[in-house]
């Protein structure tokens, strides 16, 4: 009797185990899956749209209610990318956008060619020749890109992640040679600014790719000595990466001539140290420190705040002169030219992708010199294979004469929808 029950019990347990196993393990699904078909022509279309609402700060040290900023912004972008291969070594690429902006004052619609180029590659892939409009990315920095020496004002992702102008390339001829772990690159690109029209800038890059990854970039602008930048990054262990970037330029990013006089220096450097860590659960943490001499020093900032306070007081008392208005305009514009001060910390946490394709990102950009902060919270969701959304909150926190306290927005909320066809 015991033996029978025992065997029944065993049978029951194994039967239950089998039922569970069979119901849990999905059957082979590959009968219905279509295979990938390579094609010599490929194109992608993305539609991006966002709505942003700002709590505007129109009254601060640099702006005593002179400039009215938009409390609402809408943007829609039709992004078309095409790629064609002829034979095995000739390729054409283009990226064209149609963009429509609407704010509380006006609506603009325009089309832009972000990229359009031809690439020839040798049979062994060691040589690449490119001509046309090309977007280059030479920096490994996540928040700050020190080694993108071609017109860095196009490359400030922390200001606006969705601004398509940041993806616009330069008209250039690009030659690259790769041998073993080394690469060499030479670029001749367009150069236009207020004093130079239709000129060229030249860049030479050399780099080593391996456990320790190095690159050196030498850059020549018209009427200027050589600039250079170096980068280094490596994998510390399976979960940690480390990077460092340094740049040495002869032109300061901030336009100082309208703000104070007496600067004779023409050498400006900045460096970045950063590390990223991925936890076992899949969460990612990044920390970066930036030191930039392009930002204003303590004494320079004191001059700017003193002069701005005086100009602001005069204008508020209806005693403002043209110089006062010009000074505040220049001070307000300084927000567009990069960092106002010299020491920054950036931290971002990215959660692992959830079961339902939710992801959370939270970042902090801290100006160590004045203790002002920019907080950004993002909720990302993939709704299906095509549609993704991002809800973003930005909070600018700082005193009346601190960098993030001077921002035109005190806080903002943006909802971004992206459909990839």
């Amino acid at each position, binding site marked *: 009797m*015991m033996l029978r029950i025992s065997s029944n019990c065993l049978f029951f347990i194994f039967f239950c185990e089998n039922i569970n196993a069979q119901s849990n393990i999905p059957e082979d699904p590959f009968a219905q899956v279509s295979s990938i078909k390579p094609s010599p022509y490929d194109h992608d279309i993305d539609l991006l749209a966002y709505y942003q609402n700002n709590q505007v700060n129109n009254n601060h040290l640099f702006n005593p209610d002179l400039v009215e900023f938009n409390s609402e912004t809408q943007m829609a972008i039709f992004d078309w990318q095409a790629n064609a291969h002829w034979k095995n070594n000739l390729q054409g690429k283009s990226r064209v956008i149609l963009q429509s902006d609407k704010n509380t004052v006006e609506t603009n619609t325009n089309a832009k060619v972000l990229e359009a180029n031809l690439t020839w590659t040798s049979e062994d892939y060691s040589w*690449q020749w490119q001509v046309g409009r090309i977007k280059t*990315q030479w920096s490994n920095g996540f928040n700050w890109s020190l080694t993108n020496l071609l017109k860095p004002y196009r490359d400030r992702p922390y200001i606006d992640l969705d601004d398509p102008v940041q993806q616009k390339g330069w008209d250039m001829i690009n030659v690259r040679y790769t041998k073993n772990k080394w690469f060499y690159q030479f670029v001749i690109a367009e150069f236009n600014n207020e004093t130079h029209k239709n000129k060229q800038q030249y860049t030479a890059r050399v780099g080593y790719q391996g*456990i320790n990854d190095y690159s050196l970039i030498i850059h020549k602008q018209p009427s200027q000595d050589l600039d250079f930048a170096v980068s280094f990054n490596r994998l510390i262990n399976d979960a940690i990466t480390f990077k460092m970037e340094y740049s040495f330029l002869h032109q300061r990013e901030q336009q100082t001539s309208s703000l104070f006089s007496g600067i004779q220096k023409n050498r400006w450097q900045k460096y970045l140290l950063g590390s990223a860590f*991925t936890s076992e659960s899949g969460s990612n943490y990044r920390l970066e420190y930036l030191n930039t001499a392009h930002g204003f020093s303590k004494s320079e900032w004191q001059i700017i705040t003193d002069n701005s306070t005086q100009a602001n007081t005069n204008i508020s008392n209806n005693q403002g002169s043209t110089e006062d208005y010009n000074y505040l305009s220049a001070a307000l514009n300084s927000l567009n030219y990069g960092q106002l001060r010299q020491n920054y910390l950036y931290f971002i946490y990215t959660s692992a992708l959830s079961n339902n394709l939710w992801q959370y990102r939270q970042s902090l950009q801290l100006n160590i010199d004045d203790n002002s902060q920019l907080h950004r919270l993002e909720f990302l969701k993939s709704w299906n294979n095509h549609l993704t959304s991002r809800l973003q909150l930005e909070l600018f926190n700082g005193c009346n004469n601190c960098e993030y306290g001077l921002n035109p927005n005190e806080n903002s909320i943006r909802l971004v929808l992206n459909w990839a066809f």
Partner: protein
Amino acid sequence: MNYLKNNFKKYVFINCLILIYLIIPIHTDANESEIKPQTNTLNKTATELVEIIDSYRGLSEAGFSFDITNVSYKADRDSRTNQLSVDVKTNNSLVEFKSPARQKGRILLKKEDDMWLYIPGTRRVIRISPAQRLLGETSNADVTGSNFSRDYNAQIITTKTDKKAEQIQLVLTAKNKKMSYQKVLFWLTDTPPFKPIKSEYFARSGKLLKTAQYKAFKEFNGELKIHKMLLSDPLISGSFTWMLFDNYRLSTLPDALFNKEAIVNL
């Protein structure tokens, strides 16, 4: 009736005690497996068997390409499919994301232990770590594969219970602490062509992280390759990923192709 009920409970209790008694010695036997670094019956050393395992993933001098389709399942949600195109040459691989549309165009470059990710929207190439995940529950290291011959020391384990199953069991121990999986257990058939049957992947802490079952193989250029694999996550109930490796083809893959500067223009 109560008498029967009470007696039934008593019998079940006794049976379960017997069952526990029967199971314990089996586990004790399994734990007392003998590590035998010497050869198996067909005179294959552990090192040779690991090279065979690597050859099933295609790690060889000649470059070739194949496609991967992943279908992942989790409890209480629909299955998800993504497709990748992979180029492999020795220790280097290039993985291009083909679907879903929201990830299309991304390229993952693995050059020995180093990994870079190309993001097409921003044209950025960033260094990433093997532990980062681009495909939900599948880590980068899972997608690009491991070179067991290079990164692990192997020993043949023979257990008393395995003998009847005609399987060889190998234990692979990471040569350095950088590896995602510090220990891997591998079961192979005991006869040529020594097909992989199952593998288990362990963290440094000893925790079992992943189990792979090798469900089907396909001949390519006279060599067998893995065709279908089932991954399961023992830490998450109901978490499975079916992987299809298909469309194997010889490719001319110059060394210079596996370079972070080159992947921007693929």
